[in-house]
C-alpha cells in the first residue's frame, strides 16, 4: 500500500475508537523499539570491545573479539565463518548440537536479527523495497488521522478527570454495547494514553481487563499533571526512536548500571527524535526545535522547591581527551514527592548546548534518600577546543512511580573559564542547587549553526545566452515554461552542534516542495569527521518555473549520519520560500527571505546566502 491509508470514510465515532487502538499500538511499539535499541547497543558494545583503535596496528596476532594475543602453537585461534576474523577459543559460540561455531559477534548479530525482527524486515524488503523499513500501518494511520483532524493533542492544563466523569458514555457507544464509559475527548484520551503508556501496555499483557468489550482497550481515567514533551504530542513519531543511543560514545559511564533500570528505560521511551514525520504536511520546523530535547527539557516533569547542594569534581584528562565529572553526593535535597516524603534521586548531565541523548550522562538512582551518595564518574570525550564552548549542566532528578520525574535542582558550570590545568580545581566542591533558569533557553535563539549556500535559478533567457550548457534539459521545445532549474550549491556549514568529540559525519538534504505538494528531494554525500563540513555539492531541481518557485518551499536540513543501523540525527534546517517563517531568528529569516527573492527575481545569477539553521 504505497497509497495513503485513510480514515476519511469513517464516522467520527469510529475514528475515535480506531484512534484509541492506534495509541495503544503506539505504546507497544515504543516498548518494542526501546528493547530493540538496547539489543543493538549491546551488539555494538561487543563490536567495540574487539575493535582495534586506529593507532594500534595488527602487528601481532590477537583475537578479533577479546584482543587476547594468539599463540603460534597453542591457542592459535581460528577464522570465524561469519566474519572471517581470527578469534580465540573463548570467543566462539558453538551452535546447538553441532561442531559449527561462530564468533561472539556473529552469533550475537544473528541473535539480534531474530530478536529485533530484522529478519522479517529484510525479507519483506524483497517484495516492497520502497517501503520504509520499520514504518507500520499504525504509524501511517496516525499520520493520516493527524492530517484529518489537526488535533492538538495535549491541552495546556487538562482538568483532572474524576471517576464520575469517566463513568458515563455517549449514547451511541452504549447502544453499540461496546463503550462502557468511553467519553473522553481525543485530547484527554491522548493525555491519558501517553502518561499511562506503561499501564496500558501492561494491561494488555495480562489481558485481564475489559473482558466483555471486544473492540476497545482499557480505559484510563486518572488525570495527571504530567506532560509529554512537544515531540511526544506528535502522534506518529514513534518509529524513529531507535536513533542516537549512547553507544556513539563508548566512554559512557564508568559504572554502567543495569540496562533495565527504570530511568534508562523511561528516558529512552520518551525521547523521540523524529524529524521526518512530526508534521505530516512536511513542515518540519516545529520538529527541528524539539529534535534534540528530551522530554525533561521540554517541561515534562514536576518541580520541587529546590533546596540542597551537590558535590562534584571536574577533571579533564588532556591525554585521553576525556572530561570526567565525578558526582559524589547531594545533601538537603527536596523531596521528590513532598507528601509521601519520597525521594529517589539521580543526576543527569549535559554538555550544553548539546542536548541530544548522545550527550546525556546519568548516574544510577538512589532510593529513598535526600542525602544520596553517588560516587560515580560520568565521562565525555571532548576535544580541548570544544571545551571552551560548552557549559556543563548538572541536574538532579527524582524518579517517581510510573517513572515520573521531578526536577530537584541544577547547576550550570561554564567550562570556558575553567582552569583544567590547575590541580586545585580538580577537587570536589559543593555547589548549591538552583531552580531551572526561567526563560533562559528562550533567550538564546535556537541556533544550530549556519549553512552557506549559493543559489541560482537557471532559465533559458534566450537562444544566444546559453552560458551554462548544463542548465538546460534537452528536448524542452514543447513546454518551454517548465525547463527552468534551480541550482543550489551547498558550500558548507559552520557552528553546527557537533558531537562531543568535536566532529560530525554530516550531509545535507534538500527538499523542494512545489505548489502541488510534489516534493523533489536531493541529498549530498556524507563528509566524515568534520566539524565544519565543506560539501560544495550542487542540488539541481529540474523542470521548475519561476512562478512555481514563488509558491514553493525549499528546505535544507543538515544531518549527522548515524554510526550504524540507527537513525541519522537532525542538526538543523532552514527553509526558504513562500510559507510563513517559523518563530525565532526573525532577522535572519527576513534576510534569507530577501536573498531568496533575489534568487527568484534575477535568473541566471548566483546569489550567496548564509542561512541560520534552526
Amino acid at each position, binding site marked *: *500500500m504505497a497509497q495513503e491509508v485513510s*480514515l476519511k*470514510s*469513517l464516522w467520527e465515532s469510529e475514528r475515535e*475508537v*480506531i484512534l484509541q*487502538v492506534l495509541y495503544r*499500538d503506539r505504546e*507497544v511499539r515504543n516498548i518494542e523499539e*526501546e*528493547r530493540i535499541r538496547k539489543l543493538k547497543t549491546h551488539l555494538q558494545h561487543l563490536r567495540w570491545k574487539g575493535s582495534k583503535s586506529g593507532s594500534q596496528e595488527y602487528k601481532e596476532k590477537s583475537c578479533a573479539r577479546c584482543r587476547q594475543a594468539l599463540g603460534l602453537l597453542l591457542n592459535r585461534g581460528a577464522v570465524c*565463518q*561469519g566474519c572471517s576474523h581470527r578469534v580465540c577459543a573463548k570467543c566462539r559460540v558453538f*551452535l*546447538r*548440537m553441532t561442531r*559449527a561455531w*561462530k564468533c561472539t559477534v556473529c*552469533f550475537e548479530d*544473528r541473535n539480534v536479527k*531474530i*530478536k*529485533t*525482527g530484522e*529478519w*522479517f524486515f529484510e*525479507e*519483506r524488503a*524483497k*517484495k*516492497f523495497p520502497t*517501503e520504509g523499513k520499520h514504518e*507500520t*500501518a*499504525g504509524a501511517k*494511520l496516525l499520520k493520516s488521522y493527524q492530517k484529518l483532524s489537526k488535533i492538538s493533542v495535549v491541552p495546556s492544563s487538562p482538568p483532572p478527570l474524576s471517576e464520575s466523569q469517566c463513568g458515563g458514555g455517549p449514547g451511541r457507544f452504549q447502544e*453499540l*454495547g*461496546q463503550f462502557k464509559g468511553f467519553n473522553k475527548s481525543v485530547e484527554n484520551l491522548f493525555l491519558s494514553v501517553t502518561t*499511562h503508556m*506503561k*499501564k496500558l*501496555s*501492561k494491561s*494488555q*499483557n*495480562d*489481558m*485481564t481487563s475489559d*473482558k*466483555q468489550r*471486544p*473492540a476497545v*482497550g482499557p480505559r484510563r481515567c*486518572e*488525570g495527571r499533571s504530567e506532560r509529554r514533551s512537544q515531540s511526544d504530542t506528535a502522534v506518529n513519531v514513534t518509529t524513529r526512536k531507535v536513533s542516537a543511543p549512547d553507544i556513539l560514545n563508548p566512554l559512557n559511564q564508568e559504572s554502567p548500571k543495569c540496562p533495565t533500570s*527504570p530511568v534508562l*528505560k523511561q528516558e529512552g521511551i520518551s525521547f523521540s527524535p523524529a524529524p521526518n514525520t512530526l508534521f505530516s504536511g512536511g513542515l518540519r520546523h516545529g520538529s527541528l526545535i524539539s529534535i534534540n530535547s528530551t522530554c525533561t527539557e521540554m517541561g515534562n516533569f514536576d518541580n520541587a522547591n529546590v533546596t540542597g547542594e551537590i558535590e562534584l569534581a571536574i577533571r579533564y584528562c588532556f591525554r585521553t581527551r576525556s572530561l570526567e565529572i565525578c558526582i559524589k553526593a547531594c545533601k538537603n535535597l527536596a523531596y521528590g514527592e513532598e507528601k509521601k516524603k519520597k525521594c529517589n534521586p539521580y543526576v543527569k548531565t549535559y554538555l550544553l548546548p548539546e542536548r541530544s541523548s548522545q550527550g546525556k550522562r546519568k548516574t544510577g538512582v538512589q532510593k529513598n534518600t535526600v542525602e544520596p551518595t553517588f560516587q560515580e564518574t560520568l565521562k565525555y570525550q571532548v576535544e580541548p577546543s570544544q571545551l571552551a564552548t560548552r557549559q556543563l549542566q548538572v541536574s538532579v532528578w527524582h524518579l517517581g*512511580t*510510573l517513572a515520573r520525574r521531578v526536577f530537584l535542582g541544577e547547576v550550570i558550570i561554564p567550562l570556558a573559564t575553567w582552569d583544567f590545568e590547575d590541580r586545585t580545581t580538580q577537587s570536589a566542591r559543593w555547589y548549591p542547587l538552583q531552580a531551572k533558569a526561567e526563560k533562559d533557553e528562550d533567550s538564546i535563539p535556537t541556533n544550530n549553526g549556519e549553512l552557506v549556500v549559493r543559489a541560482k535559478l537557471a532559465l533559458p533567457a534566450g537562444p544566444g545566452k546559453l552560458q551554462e550548457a548544463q542548465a538546460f534539459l534537452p528536448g524542452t521545445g514543447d513546454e518551454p515554461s517548465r525547463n527552468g532549474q534551480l541550482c543550489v550549491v551547498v558550500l558548507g556549514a559552520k557552528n553546527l552542534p557537533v558531537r562531543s568529540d568535536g566532529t560530525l559525519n554530516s550531509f545535507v538534504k534538500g527538499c523542494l516542495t512545489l505548489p502541488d505538494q510534489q516534493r523533489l528531494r536531493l541529498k549530498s554525500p556524507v563528509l566524515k569527521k568534520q566539524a565544519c563540513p565543506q560539501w560544495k555539492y550542487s542540488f539541481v531541481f529540474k523542470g521548475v518555473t519561476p512562478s512555481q518557485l514563488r509558491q514553493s518551499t525549499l528546505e535544507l536540513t543538515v544531518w549527522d549520519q548515524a554510526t550504524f543501523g540507527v537513525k541519522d540525527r537532525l542538526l538543523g534546517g532552514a527553509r526558504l520560500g513562500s510559507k510563513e517563517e517559523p518563530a525565532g531568528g526573525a532577522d535572519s529569516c527576513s534576510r534569507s527571505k530577501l536573498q531568496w527573492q533575489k534568487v527568484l527575481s534575477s535568473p541566471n545569477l548566483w546569489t550567496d546566502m548564509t542561512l541560520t539553521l534552526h
Partner: protein
Amino acid sequence: MASATDSRYGQKESSDQNFDYMFKILIIGNSSVGKTSFLFRYADDSFTPAFVSTVGIDFKVKTIYRNDKRIKLQIWDTAGQERYRTITTAYYRGAMGFILMYDITNEESFNAVQDWSTQIKTYSWDNAQVLLVGNKCDMEDERVVSSERGRQLADHLGFEFFEASAKDNINVKQTFERLVDVICEKMSESLDTADPAVTGAKQGPQLTDQQAPPHQDCAC
C-alpha cells in the same frame, strides 16, 4: 489517583521488555465468523456469545513461552466488513503470520477464503504464514462446510488447516502455537539461507520439532 494503583503498575513495568521477540499476527475473514471471539478466547480465555462488530482494527498482546523462548504476540483482530477494508489491508504488510478464518456454518464465509488469500498475496510479504481455521466447530448441527472441504481448500492454497471453536475452546491455543512455530521455521530459514555457513544453527533444530506433545504453556 490511588497510590495502590501506581505501585501495581509499577511492579509490572519491569517485565515489559521481558521477552525474546515479538511476532505480529493478523486474523482475517468474513464478518461474524468469530475472529474477535477467537482472539478473546486465546488472550483472555473468555467468551461472549453476543455479536459485536469490530470497528476497523483492534489488537491484543499475549506473551507465550515456546521453544525456550518468550514470544510476545501482538495479535491484530480485523473488521470483516468491507467498509473497513482500506484500514485492515494496511496491516497486512506488518504481519508475519495470518489466521484466515471462516465459519463452518456459513457457506459464504468459506467461499470468500480464496479472496482473502488473494488479499494476503497482494498485500503481505512473500513468506507470509497462513493458517486456515474453520471456526464454530461446536455447532455440528448447523455445519454446512465439511472438514474435508476445508482441508482440501487449505491444501490447495498451501495453508495448514484447523477446525476450532472459540466457544468450546477447541484448537484455539493450538492454532496460535502452530502459527508461531511456522513463523519460527520461516525465520530460521530466512536467516540460514542468508548465512549458509551455519546450518542447523541455534533456532533450527529445536524449532522444527513441533511434534512435541502439547504441553501447558506459561500463558502469562
